[in-house]
């Protein structure tokens, strides 16, 4: 493919769908509950042959581009359904194929319900870090993260987090991942996560598009409920006498406001350098695209017959590596575009127009970034939150700083 843009940045993160099913039935899941239903035709688990072929392709890609450090995300579905022995095989096989001159770091992103001592011993032996998804306290988590029979997943996840945050496995603790629900009190959610003493937490915006907007995100640009929610978290986090943990989305915005570069795809203009491999070996784009439309993440490539370089040439990958030039025209005219970077790519989708739109969260991102910019520059924060509103049980934030 000819392309006048900058040279492609090689992939340095490989997201492996080691298991395509999940033991939870979270109602907001982009894999099972949104537009794309390709999970149903995938093998449940990544076979040893696909693992080997993926490892060979990763080694080939890193060698060809002179990359000596890369990360592998063990993902799903719920990756722990693959079992400890199979996950151990994935890690050892990929490291063996990468060779001694290449450092592969591993992280598993799990709902935690199957994370027991046996599993953690395997991860400890192979230095696999563990990120856990949890939305806050029990009430917040039970809103969405339930088992197929409707039972709560919270107690099992808490048991796992007690183990993971204890002294033996603490070094493996990668962080907590929560999805924002506007009905949840933001400060309560943050403080509930903080109880596990995570090294970092992140609050993900629920997936949605212009065609299928996120809950509570109206077409009114003056309405910024997600910014308001995150600003409440920001004020609690930013004003603490000592930094209690990292809050990834907020920290990345601060870094960008100070002239640095983001390390995540959700904000900023750093080139996206990751790729997904499904259980059957198909190479896919970022899998959150599955929220947009069926087949949105597909490339038509597979580790059995294609090099990762072929995926580097895919237009969506190129768009994610072009920086400002990859943004819609409306974004380029906005003073915040260096910081928001157009937001998460799937959130730009509108049926009939594709991805050439600002994010469906544009108004929220604009307000959030503006608030953080003013606070860094010395503007006072809002007054302390009032008492919880008895109707919603949410604390009422004071008016934002001017």
């Amino acid at each position: 493919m000819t392309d006048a843009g900058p040279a492609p940045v090689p992939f340095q993160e490989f997201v492996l769908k080691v298991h395509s099913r999940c033991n939870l039935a979270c109602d907001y899941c982009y894999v099972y509950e949104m537009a794309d239903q390709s999970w149903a035709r995938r093998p449940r688990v990544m076979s040893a042959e696909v693992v080997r072929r993926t490892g060979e392709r990763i080694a080939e890609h890193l060698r060809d581009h002179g990359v000596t450090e890369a990360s592998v995300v063990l993902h799903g579905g719920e990756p722990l359904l693959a079992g400890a022995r199979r996950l151990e095989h994935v890690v050892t096989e990929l490291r063996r194929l990468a060779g001694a001159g290449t450092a592969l770091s591993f992280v598993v992103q799990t709902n935690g319900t199957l994370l027991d001592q046996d599993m953690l011993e395997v991860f400890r032996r192979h230095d696999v870090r563990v990120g856990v998804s949890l939305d806050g306290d029990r009430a917040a988590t039970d809103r969405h993260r339930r088992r197929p029979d409707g039972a709560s997943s919270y107690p099992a996840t808490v048991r796992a987090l007690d183990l993971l945050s204890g002294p033996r496995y603490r070094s493996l603790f990668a962080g907590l991942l929560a999805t924002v629900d506007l009905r949840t009190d933001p400060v309560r959610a943050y403080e509930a996560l903080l109880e596990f003493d995570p090294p970092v937490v992140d609050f993900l915006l629920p997936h949605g598009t212009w065609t299928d907007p996120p809950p509570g995100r109206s077409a009114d640009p003056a309405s910024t409920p997600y910014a308001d929610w995150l600003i409440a978290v920001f004020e609690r986090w930013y004003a603490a006498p000592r930094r209690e943990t990292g809050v990834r989305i907020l920290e990345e915005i601060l870094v960008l406001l100070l002239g640095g570069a983001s390390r995540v795809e959700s904000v900023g203009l750093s080139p996206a350098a990751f790729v997904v491999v499904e259980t059957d070996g198909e190479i896919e784009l970022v899998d959150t695209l599955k929220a947009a439309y069926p087949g949105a993440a597909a490339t038509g490539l597979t580790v059995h017959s294609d090099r990762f370089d072929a995926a580097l040439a895919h237009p969506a990958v190129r768009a994610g590596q072009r920086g400002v030039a990859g943004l819609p025209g409306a974004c380029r005219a906005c003073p915040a575009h260096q910081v928001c970077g157009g937001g998460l790519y799937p959130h730009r989708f509108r049926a009939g127009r594709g991805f050439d739109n600002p994010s469906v969260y544009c108004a929220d991102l604009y307000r959030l970034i503006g608030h953080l910019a003013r606070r860094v520059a010395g503007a006072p924060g809002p007054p302390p939150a009032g008492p919880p509103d008895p109707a919603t049980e949410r604390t009422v934030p004071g008016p934002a700083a001017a």
Partner: protein
Amino acid sequence: MAERMREAEFGSAPTILPDQLLDELAENGTDVLRHVIRRVRAEAGAGGRIVARFNNQNGGVPTAPYLGRDAPAGPGADEAGP
């Protein structure tokens, strides 16, 4: 770094902080802000190119920026984790 901050100017809120003010914030800002300033400075000093990672996980972020074949070598960032 100051040059890059000027490029990132945002609306009426000054995101362009003169190095002198940044120095002051690095001393007297909130602990969160001081942490962020240390990271920005470490990464600017390290050279290389920061790449964006998969959003749907929290770990696995290497501590050193990618040093491509055409990127200047550097000591690497001195802070662990995101």
